[in-house]
């Protein structure tokens, strides 16, 4: 499945310098530039940049607290804060276009119409190399989590696939009985790639209280705690798919990335580990490269 040559890799027609990208919502290149200055661009850790989920309307996100630390992991209820489509196009896109790597825009809509609007808007922007569809959200009409139901995913892709020639990556939710079935449906409905895993639904109570800690009541679990689950789901999905897979979930080392590639992933995304060190992606890519080189006869 992987078309890596040395460390360079081709993904949906896009040439990438190495197989490590960031997970959506875990690296804000614009904020990082404020904190680290130009060094960010000179030493960008990822071979492509995936932006945080963009929605049609601006969103404030969930009330704090938004974070809860777990044994070997993290739980968040960020709630997809973003400037909305207009704000993103006006303020974020020009800044992100300056990055030295291709840009993948992650979008989410609460109706087919919203997703269609987002896909159409980005389809015509040459700054955008690919689109990632975040389907970890309920269909507001049916109430089902779109990403957990193959039929919902097909219905969505039937609407948006014809709207763009850009690569469409469907980001699957792990909170589903049969993730591989959803992935297969996405492939059959024209997705160019799938990505997984998004966060697992979790919850924590405030210490010394019986109240939920997170402002959003439940949150999404990520980090090393989900690594084995991510590998199992990636394995299941890759076993059934012909299109490329972007795998993520708890990646901390080149060995973790290599395992995801061994079960079939083309690209590997680093998420939570970037919180521990903004250069985690660079380290993972280097470690992976050493493993690949080391493994050659």
């Amino acid at each position, binding site marked *: 499945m992987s078309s890596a040559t040395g460390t360079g890799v081709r993904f949906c027609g896009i040439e990438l310098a190495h197989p490590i990208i960031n997970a959506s919502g875990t690296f804000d290149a614009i*904020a990082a530039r404020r904190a*680290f200055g130009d060094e960010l661009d000179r030493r960008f850790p990822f071979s492509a940049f995936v932006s945080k989920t963009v929605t049609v309307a601006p969103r404030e996100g969930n009330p*704090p607290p*938004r974070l809860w630390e777990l044994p070997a992991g993290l739980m968040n209820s*960020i709630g997809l804060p973003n400037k909305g489509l207009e704000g993103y196009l006006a303020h974020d896109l020009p800044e992100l276009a300056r990055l030295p790597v291709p840009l993948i825009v992650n979008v989410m809509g609460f109706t087919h119409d919203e997703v269609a609007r987002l896909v159409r808007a980005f389809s015509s922007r040459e700054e955008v190399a690919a689109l990632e569809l975040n389907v970890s959200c309920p269909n507001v009409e049916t109430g089902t989590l779109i990403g957990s139901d193959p039929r919902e995913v097909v219905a969505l892709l039937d609407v948006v696939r014809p709207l763009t020639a850009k690569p469409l990556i469907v980001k699957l939710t792990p909170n589903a009985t049969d993730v591989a079935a959803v992935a297969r449906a996405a492939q059959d409905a024209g997705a160019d790639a799938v990505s997984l895993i998004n966060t697992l639904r979790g919850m924590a109570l405030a210490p010394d209280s019986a109240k939920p800690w997170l402002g959003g009541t439940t949150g999404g679990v990520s980090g090393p705690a989900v690594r084995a689950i991510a590998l199992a789901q990636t394995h299941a999905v890759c076993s059934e798919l012909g299109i490329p897979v972007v795998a993520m979930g708890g990646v901390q080392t080149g060995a973790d990335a290599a395992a995801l590639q061994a079960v079939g992933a083309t690209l590997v995304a680093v998420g939570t580990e970037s*919180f521990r*060190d903004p250069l985690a992606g660079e380290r993972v890519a280097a470690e992976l490269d050493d493993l690949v080189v080391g493994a050659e006869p």
Partner: protein
Amino acid sequence: MRGGDRVLAPFGARQVPIIAHERHGAYHVLRCADERGPRPRAGQFYMLASARRWGGGASQRPFVPRAFSVLRAPAGTDELHFLLDVVGPGTERLCELQVDDGLSILGPLGIGFRFPRDGREPLLVGGGVGIAPLAIWQDELGSVSALLGFRDAEHARGAALLSGARVATDDGSRGHHGLVTELLQERLVAEDHVEVYACGPPAMLEAVRAMCAATATPAQLALESGMACGYGACFGCVVPTTDGYVRLCVDGPVLDAARLQSALVPGAPQ
């Protein structure tokens, strides 16, 4: 946003050696030698973790690094000092570190204190471990007044980290018996040309905010909230302001009191 109040951080966490670990009453001061980093501004912070064995404590934590205001960055040295209060698994692990142990640091991060407006006299108000950013600010401003509140005399030994501070303790075991905000109230009544710089527990900061608002005194508050990354990546550290939620790690941790309806940040470490 005044960019001038921010010193940029080198990109990436770097490992530095601990060069001293001192006790000040109930508090710990960790000093490290940061050869590769710039001198921070007062009010900026760093994300810290032990270079080894960051984890394995209560609830198998810590996992993400922890935020700490810089206490002091003595001119002409590459030293960074941090003041720590042990409240959970992260601070517990950091306070196990000894001289020559490795500390992982990312920073300086965030926006620090700005100089007083219209020639106002700075007035520092600190509570507990929140005195940390006031020490480096006093180093920069020269000998300005400081009012510091502590639980008891044992904690009040931290007051020695600033010069000439007036002290209040909750139990009266040292200085004024009562809240530091009572000392502030006196000052606000007596003088009207001050700018307040405050850091401390949420309830103290909220009292400071309300008093300053009532007397139209400008105030800069160094807030805390739970952080995972410290550089704007996770959107986890937001606090509500009059302009909506802002990420404390990139738009703070120092915020103008006028931007806050309340300084009681939900979920902030107490």
